């Protein structure tokens, strides 16, 4: 769903109510972008604090949710940049973590989407992103021109990206 046409309220109470109502959507975005739920929570706090600081300067005619998502994305990029500059830790992001219910739900959703792809699209998508085969290897293996492999792959990614309610 595209960010709704919710306009930002100007008074503090209404603004706080707006943040409270919108933070779930922002958190969902950040959980998709961040490496961990803890990171997503951190970036959400930064985003809400930044939004609160900038509330007076905000143009109330703008789309409030889009503005907040934009602020969240910028906070995420800053957070990512800071993380990159930190020295790697032994038990960092790459440490094995228990599989959460959200991860299982995501896995099932992706499986469902994979099953809905055309066989050639599914094979190319898995060959490239899971088995690390190059585009040229895939072209040779399936006897397809390189550009055809790219087209199939792009179509497969687009279908993987679309929400259930979206049609081809």
């Amino acid at each position, binding site marked *: *769903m*595209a*960010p709704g046409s919710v306009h930002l309220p100007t008074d503090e109470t209404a603004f706080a109510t707006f943040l409270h109502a919108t933070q779930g959507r922002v958190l*969902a*975005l950040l959980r*998709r*972008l961040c490496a961990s739920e803890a990171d997503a929570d951190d970036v959400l706090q930064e985003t809400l604090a930044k939004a609160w600081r900038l509330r007076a300067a905000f143009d109330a005619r703008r789309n409030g949710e*889009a*503005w907040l*998502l*934009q602020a969240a*994305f*910028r906070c995420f*990029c800053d957070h*990512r940049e800071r993380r990159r500059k930190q020295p790697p830790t032994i038990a960092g992001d790459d440490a094995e973590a228990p599989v959460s219910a959200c*991860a299982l739900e*995501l*896995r*099932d*959703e*992706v*499986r469902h*989407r*994979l099953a809905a792809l055309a066989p050639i699209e599914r094979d190319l*998508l*898995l060959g490239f*992103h*899971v088995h690390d085969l190059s*585009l040229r290897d895939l072209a040779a293996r399936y006897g397809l021109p390189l550009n055809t492999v*790219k087209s199939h*792959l*792009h179509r497969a*990614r*687009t279908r*993987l*990206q*679309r*929400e259930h309610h979206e049609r081809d």
Partner: protein
Amino acid sequence: MNETEFATALHACLDARRDPLDDAALCSWLAEHPEQLESFAALRQRLAALPAAAPVAPVARARRRPTTLQLAGAAVLAAGVLAVAWPRPEPALPPVRGILAASLEEQRPLAGAAVSFTLRQGWRIAPGAVLETYETRSQLR
């Protein structure tokens, strides 16, 4: 950059195995188009989840160690097969009850108290084989 150009650049970035978030132009466009953020984040997350969601290639089942019962069954079966297939010796001919031929020779010495007899008998012991026996007896006159 319009939406189509963004999509082209995004796929080119993925084709090159680069993270789109490392591309300044893509990040800048996304920041200016927050309505595309959720769709982009969904794609990135689902691509990252592909290894976990990929169907596992069928793996040959590990061979189980045979149980004692299975071993015993196999032994019985092998014994049965051997018993059926083992070359058997020719069945022994039943003992010959009849005498094929017999002759009696009487010896009467002129001076002697006894008479001697020699009995010769022929026995078939196998196809084409005959056993001859000789028996000598003496009897008082």
